[in-house]
């Protein structure tokens, strides 16, 4: 990612996810995989799977009728300037774009050392264990806006950077001044219940920017100070307790994820 032509006004794209309204259908996962040309490797399992967003089911740890569950979509949390994955990458394959706040990953630079995976506290990075292969004929359905990645690199959510590029090109073609553009990532577009919302957190008038300041809004492992730009919302205390980072040496008492 180059920053030679930085816009005069930077955006800070972010998301809000309303956990209380997520029904765990997985449409966001599916739409993301279609958009970003994730290959359908049949050998994938929960440890070697490749996806840019995964929906986790968490519960309050109770049994029987007292048990309550919730679904938490997890993608790269797009941490602030001191994102843990950026500082550990020996190849400078990861950076935080000052124009957008998006934590970018350049697979062509990636060596596959997976330091970034170890550093990421959200486990939101996935290693590409297999050659990208599709059943015969299905490669015709690939999204032309995103290049498939090779085996041996780390992948993650980039807030649908291809769509951001397309929005920038459209804005330029329409003669709009350089600056933040409005676009919609695939998961936001596909979410049937409108749980996931996306916008520029620097724009005070943006509904997403307003909602992150409301009560019930929280970020995952907030005490780590990674300053993620993905905000969750829930009225349930046990959900918020699961999301909070235990201080070093302090065991998490509630929750089961």
């Amino acid at each position, binding site marked *: 990612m180059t920053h030679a032509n930085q816009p005069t006004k930077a955006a800070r794209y972010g998301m809000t996810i309303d956990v209380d*309204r997520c029904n765990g259908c997985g449409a966001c996962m599916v*739409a993301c995989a279609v958009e970003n040309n994730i290959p359908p490797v049949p050998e994938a399992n929960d440890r070697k*799977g490749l996806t840019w967003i995964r929906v986790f*089911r968490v519960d309050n740890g109770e049994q029987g009728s007292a048990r309550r569950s919730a679904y938490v979509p997890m993608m790269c949390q797009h941490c602030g300037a001191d994102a843990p994955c950026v500082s550990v990458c020996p190849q400078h394959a990861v950076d935080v774009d000052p124009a957008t706040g998006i934590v970018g990953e350049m697979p062509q630079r990636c060596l596959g050392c997976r330091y970034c995976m170890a550093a990421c506290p959200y486990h939101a990075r996935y290693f590409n264990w297999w050659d990208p292969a599709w059943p015969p004929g299905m490669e015709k359905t690939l999204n032309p806006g*995103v290049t498939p990645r090779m085996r041996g690199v780390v992948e993650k959510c980039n807030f649908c950077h291809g769509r951001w590029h397309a929005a920038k090109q459209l804005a330029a073609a329409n003669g709009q001044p350089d600056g933040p553009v409005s676009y919609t990532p695939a998961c936001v577009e596909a979410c049937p219940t409108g749980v996931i919302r996306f916008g520029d957190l620097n724009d005070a008038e943006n509904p997403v920017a307003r909602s992150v300041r409301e009560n019930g809004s929280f970020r995952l492992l907030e005490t780590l100070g990674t300053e993620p730009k993905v905000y969750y919302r829930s009225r349930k205390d046990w959900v918020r307790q699961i999301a909070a980072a235990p201080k070093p040496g302090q065991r998490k008492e509630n929750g089961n994820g």
Partner: protein
Amino acid sequence: MKSTRRDLFLFAGGSAAGALLTPAPWRLITDTALWSENWPGVPAPPRGEIRTRFTNCSLCRAGCGVRARCVGDQPVQLTGVASHPLSRGVLCPFGLTAHHLPYHPARLKQGPHERALAAVSAAIGSGDRVAVLDLQPGRTASWTYRRAMAALKNGVYLTNGPSVAYDLHQAKTVLSFGVPVLDGWGTPGNVIAARENFRLIQAEPVESRTATLADVWLPVQPGDEDATALAMAGELGADGSALVLDHRGPAAAMALNQRLGALGRTVVARPEAPVPVEWRSAAPATALAQVEDRSIRVLLIDESAVDGYVPWYQIERKLVLDNPVVVTFTASHGGYARHAQYALPTAVYPEISEDIPTAIDSVAATFRLSTALIAPPAGIVNPAEWIATLAGLAEGDTIRERADGIHDSGRGAIYTPADGKTVAVKDLTAEAFWKSLGEAGCWIDEPRHARAPETTTAVSEPHAHDSDVDLPLVAWLAGPSSPPLLSPLMTKLYQESNLRLAPNRVALHPSDARAARLADGVHAFFQTRLGRCGVDVTIDPGLPAGVVQLGTAPGILDVYRPGIRAKVVPA
């Protein structure tokens, strides 16, 4: 100064070590990008003109509006149509990946056409009973089957479709016994839009996706539905604002819905788009249970469009014992192809233009076409044409005939996704109406034509049985049955995230798994008194003890019925 060979080695070694301290090797590593950018194993996405086309999804009778982003004519991405009056911009995960289905590795592409035709023709000539089992009634193809069965001696048209439709927008309270209201039961966009206005009480033993978002979750055991319904009837009121749904079928909740005043208000007879007058002399729809046992010689099953699954044991008992002929029209090996003598390949969505029947959550009749986005492969069969030819029906464009019939009725209005406009049918010519349908238009009837359903009584089977004593678990389906083919990408995502139970899996509480000596991931047999089938085991502490949750593979459904007792034994 005299240089020795040792000095030469020292110089070379020193140079090599020194080079590591320069940027050169790191630059070389970075340049691996030059090779990996053109890695030969990475396929190149197609290039071409980006176009937008519209269709309606025919994977289920919800028939959601679809905007297809295409490279040339090839769809590369499917999304919902925000202004669509029924689906309201929503597509389910199955619909989002439907453009992968034509390339599914397990797809059936070849079949014994000639042998099947010869066997069926010979059996029909003997004058024995011939039947068509239509798994998604209400389509134009369904009417072709009915007319074909009327034309044949001893022809019977069999259905399993729902006889009622529901209006969630009129409901203030919905009491659901295990129906996945918020997880693929109706038209997702319509259900979500209606959800804000009704209180949802979900009664089922497992905390399903619907139970998670319900206002109240009642952990009711299978078999306790009727008692629970009776206990709650007084609380629901009888002004018609409450609605009861039951996983055992509409008939199971009919008496309670009648008592609540829901019939004709929130529960109506399944509406259907008008048909040409000359079609109305077709064979009536007959429920499979109403056909006497051992009476069907030839059974033709249309599996190309499904709306639920009829267990094979219910079908098999209707077939004659002596050489029955069963032909299934299907896109996969997994369904009735396991039992049929002949499996003939059909097109899959979005390869063929066909109409979609009215959704279960629409009280107004609808008519829309799933217009083909790509061409089907050579060798596939159109079931309606095959059966029409068999019965000697005159060839013709039946979908166009039906569209003209709707236009002649002058009822309703049609919505067109390209411009988002809705126009009354009476303001359109027949040609313009047909053109709008071809552009994925959606015709919606006026709701005033809705009528109350016929009251029926559920045929209940006893839950307990003498042979159930060694069956310690109660079987419970994990969700709605899925289409016969799923995108490989979707299968992979759900497999690695454990978000949905795979079709061939069963899930058990750890204590039940320990008692049965089963470990997570092992192969086992799921057994009921209807039979047994091979499954993979998932151990889920979130399940209640005493319940086995089932995937919806046809093999499992063949030995399942609501409330049945079961056990899982090591393979």
